[in-house]
Every structure is written in structure tokens, then in C-alpha cells.
């Protein structure tokens, strides 16, 4: 089964095509505010470099967040349109789960819990907890660093932090955990961002197990984890 994966939910935009568990082609780019500009040419490039025509894709997968609201919507809007135009299933993948899936077995030795983190802006972090068997034990949530550390303390298990938020706040996490800090470790910078490869691989796995029939109109929901700001911006209200 050939799956196209899309990830625009963080500052790193990526696209990948997998055939079963094999990655055929992938590409990534640091793209702070140019997700919409970068994504379409990247899809074109990756699919063509994989030697495929679009009609050969069997499914489309997209990172639905958490992350940058505008970024994740760019990916979701594109993925929904692709799946509709191609009449193939669409799978939404939680970006925190994609981060966990990237952890190599060797890094997870002696680890009981993997804690993926994604910067949620406004000094907050989106996080979850997964067992090393990739079972989710704490659902995605957003909060201050203190909430995250409380969750880690409560577990009292050996935790591996991954994601760029944890790496940037390494010192705060260590000092915040105090005597419990010996019980945590940090992933390297290869585990800073979710990637479309994992998004596509997770989707493939899911499609094998759930008999996902193509929806008539493929749609996936974004994982915002936060209510919309109700700020009215009269200045930018430029239409009627």
C-alpha cells in the first residue's frame, strides 16, 4: 500500500511516500512561516522522485497537530483536497505519536515512558505520554512546564523526553524535577520534530488493521487542544 504523508504542523515541513513499511522518498525543510508556499511543490517533488503518478497513491496521511494552528491547517486542507481528488482514504495522525514512533529501539533501552513535547507557544507545551510499546498512557494536552513536570513526578518511571521543546528547556526540566532528575533522559536533535515519514508509516499500520473505507468527502479534525481566541481584528476584516 502506497501512502503519502504530509506534516506542516511545526516549523519543519515534511512530505514522504511509503510503500508498506519502506520509505520510497521524503523531503523536509525548515519553514517558519511559509508552509503553504513550500508544501505543494514539495508534494510534487517527493511523489515524482518516488517514481509515482498521483493516481498510484492508495491513501493520504497528515499530521493533525498539536502545533502551529495555521501550519496544521495548511496540511489538513491540502490532504483533504488530495484525498478527495484521488478518491482515497485520509488518515489523521497525532503529531506527538509521530514523534514517539521516531524513537529508535536503542534510545528506548532502560526507558519506561516516552514523553513527546511540542512547543505550543505562549510559554506552553503540548505533551503526552507513551509506554515503550507505543501505547499511549496520557492523552495529548497543553499546559505550562509545571503541569508536565507534575505528570512526570506522578509516574515516577524512567522518562525519555523528545521534541524540540524538551531539548530547549533541558535545564528547566532537570532543575524542576530536582532529586527525580536522575530518572529522565533526552532524545537527540534528530527527534526534535515530527516527520511525514512516521505520519505515513503510522497511517499505513492503521489502514492494515482498520478496514478504512474511503469517505465520500474525506475530512480530518485538527488537534488544537485550545479554544479559539475570540479577538476581533477590525483592521484585518477586509471583506463583507
Amino acid at each position, binding site marked *: 500500500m502506497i501512502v503519502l504523508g504530509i506534516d506542516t504542523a511545526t516549523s519543519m515541513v515534511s512530505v514522504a511516500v511509503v510503500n508498506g513499511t519502506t520509505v520510497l522518498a521524503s523531503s523536509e525543510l525548515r519553514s517558519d512561516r*511559509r*508552509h*503553504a*508556499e*513550500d*508544501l*505543494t*511543490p514539495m*508534494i*510534487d517533488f517527493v511523489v515524482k522522485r518516488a517514481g509515482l503518478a*498521483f493516481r498510484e497513491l492508495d491513501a493520504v496521511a497528515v499530521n493533525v497537530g498539536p502545533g502551529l*494552528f*495555521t501550519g496544521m*491547517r*495548511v*496540511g*489538513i*486542507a*491540502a*490532504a*483533504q*483536497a*488530495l484525498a*478527495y*481528488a*484521488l478518491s482515497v482514504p485520509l488518515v489523521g495522525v497525532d503529531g506527538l505519536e509521530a514523534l514517539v514512533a521516531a524513537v529508535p529501539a536503542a534510545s528506548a533501552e532502560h526507558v519506561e515512558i516516552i514523553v513527546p513535547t511540542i512547543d505550543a507557544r505562549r510559554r506552553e507545551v503540548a505533551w503526552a505520554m507513551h509506554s515503550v510499546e507505543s501505547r499511549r498512557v496520557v492523552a495529548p494536552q497543553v499546559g505550562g512546564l509545571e503541569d508536565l513536570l507534575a505528570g512526570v513526578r506522578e509516574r515516577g518511571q524512567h522518562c525519555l523526553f523528545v521534541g524540540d521543546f524538551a531539548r530547549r528547556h533541558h535545564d528547566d526540566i532537570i532543575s524542576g524535577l530536582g532529586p527525580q532528575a536522575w530518572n529522565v533522559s533526552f532524545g537527540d536533535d534528530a527527534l526534535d520534530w515530527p516527520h511525514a515519514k512516521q505520519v505515513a508509516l503510522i497511517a499505513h499500520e492503521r489502514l492494515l488493521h482498520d478496514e478504512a473505507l474511503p469517505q*465520500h*468527502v*474525506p*475530512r480530518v*479534525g*485538527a488537534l*488544537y487542544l485550545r479554544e*479559539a*481566541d*475570540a*479577538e*476581533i*481584528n*477590525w483592521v*484585518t*476584516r*477586509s*471583506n*463583507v
Partner: protein
Amino acid sequence: MSDFTAPSSATTASSLGGATTGNSMADASTIVLGIETSCDETAAAVVMGGTDVLSSVVASQLDEHARFGGVVPEIASRAHVETLPQVVAEALERANIDVSRVDAVAATVGPGLVGALLVGVSAAKATALVLDVPFIGVNHLEAHLYAALLDEPHAQFPMLFVLVSGGHTLLVEMTNHDSYRVIGQTIDDAAGEAFDKVARFLGLPYPGGPAIDKASARGKDTAVALPRAMLNDGLDVSFSGLKTAVINYVRANPAISSDDVAASFQRAVVDVLVHKARRAARQINAKTIALGGGVAANSLLRSEMTRAGAADGISVVLPSREMCTDNAAMIASAGWYRLRRGEVTALDAGANPNLKLGAGQR
């Protein structure tokens, strides 16, 4: 809506996908899928040959924003990404065509709310990519003009385009399809903004335009003497003083009927717009005056502009009321005219929230 007839495939533009300008890539059988997500309407439409509207679907978010009295950008963006797939599917179904029959995809690239625009642009580019057809980025303001021309495609140039909406009040000289010059504009509030603010002050529901239109029908438009800011009779307009005059009058005369205030206010706005439009039309020797934007749905403006045109021997083109407010048929139509000139947009294009009329893009 008209019956669907099959396009001759030889005329489609897919083989020319990489070009940015070139020979005509559109004809009477070319089918354009239009997408509009610039503000608080999620819309898709299928238009053949530039003016034959096969379908036009608009999902309004009005209810979601009404309790805030204005458009909330993050709420708008969330609603667009959730609603757009269904809106596009419905537009294609109502037009009775499969998505594979689409010859080009047009989407609003600006002006508007950036997060909202990017939803439509991303969906449109992805669709164009897999169908291997051109993507056309459309200027929302230009599209409002094509809403007026949907029923009058042979309206004559030079044309004065009067665009009056919640964000814009523009007098535009058009000498041809690709030639725009802004010759007058508001120096403060847009016409629709003035309607919204006065309506809010009078306790009328949001959006203000239709509410004032309705209240005016019950009121007396000579009840309150209000100023008409003519700004030394150039082509620019101003509505801020008028709004302040309304507020001051009502505060001094709290017993006044709000219907009378609404009618007097509406009459003042229309007087200014019609006066300036006539003046501008004379100046550019306009053969046609075309109206566009949400305020173009106002009954008094429509009747007074038509009367003025008849008196001056200028034909006045009015969009149907549903084509005044934001829709995607006008986007598809504007896209078709661009495609006919061979103007397609590269797939690495983004949105431009501050896009101006006649600037850039080409």
C-alpha cells in the same frame, strides 16, 4: 444554472501547466472550480466559460461570529478547514461533474484574513497539482467586479467599478479586463464598516447592512439632517464624520425613532456614493458603472445608482444580491478571465492578506 455540456478536451490547459503567461488557455467550454475563504464565508463554485454558473455553494459562518459583533480570525480559519471539503464536494455534485472534469482551479489569494486565505489556497493548489491543471490565484476585489459582469459579460469599457464592502470603498477606472486604476477611495471607514458601526450603535443586529436597509424601509429619510462629506469634490469619500453626527444626534435626541435615524443615515451614504460615482464616471467617460461588494446589495443604492445612470446615459450593472456578498462563482469567473489571458499562478504561491487592486500578481 444551465445544463452541463461536455468541454472539448483539446482546449484545456493541462499541457501548459508550467507557463505563467502565454496564449489563451480558456474558452467557452473551460470549467473552473472556484474557492473562496478570505473572510467568514466558505464557498466553492463551478463556472463554465467564465460566466455560466453551474453551481455556487456558500456556507456562512455568520452565526459563529454574530455574538462577537465581528469576524474572529481564528474561529473563521477553523470553520473553513472543517467546512471546505463538503462545500467543494457539494459544488461539484450540484454542477453534476466529476472533479476530474475540472480544467483549472481558482482561489482567492487576497486580500483577507491570512489564516483563512491559506486554507483555500492550500486546498486549491493541492487539487490543481493532482489534476495536473492550472492554479489561478485571484484577487478578491477584482472578483467582486466579475460578480457584476456574470449577467452582463458584454458590458462596455471604460467602466467605473464601485466596490463597496465592509473593508473597502473604492472607485476604480477599468479600461479593459486587465487594467485597473483606483481613482477614489474612503479616507477613513469603509461604507460597510459605517453601516455595521451605526447599526451596532442603534442596537440593530449584526451584520449592519441588511439591518439598516430593513429599518430604513420603515423610517423617514429626511427626519434627521446629516452631513454629506464631499471633501471639496474630489473622488475620495469619508464616512467617519457622518457616523459621529449620527451618534451625537441620537445622544441629544434620545426619543428619535431608530428607523428614522437608519433611513436618514442610509440616504446620506447613498447620496455621497452616487454623487461621487457620477463625478468619477464623467471624468473617465465611463460607458458603464458596475457595482460590487456587500453594500451593493443595499436597495436604495441600487435604485439610486440605476436612476443616476439613466439620467446620465450610462448603463449601470448590478450583481444579483447573492453575488454581492462573498461567493466563489465570482472567484471562478475572475480566474477564467485570467486564464484566458494565459495567466496562471505558480504552485509555490502563498496568500497576500494586503493585496491591492491592480498591484502585483502579473
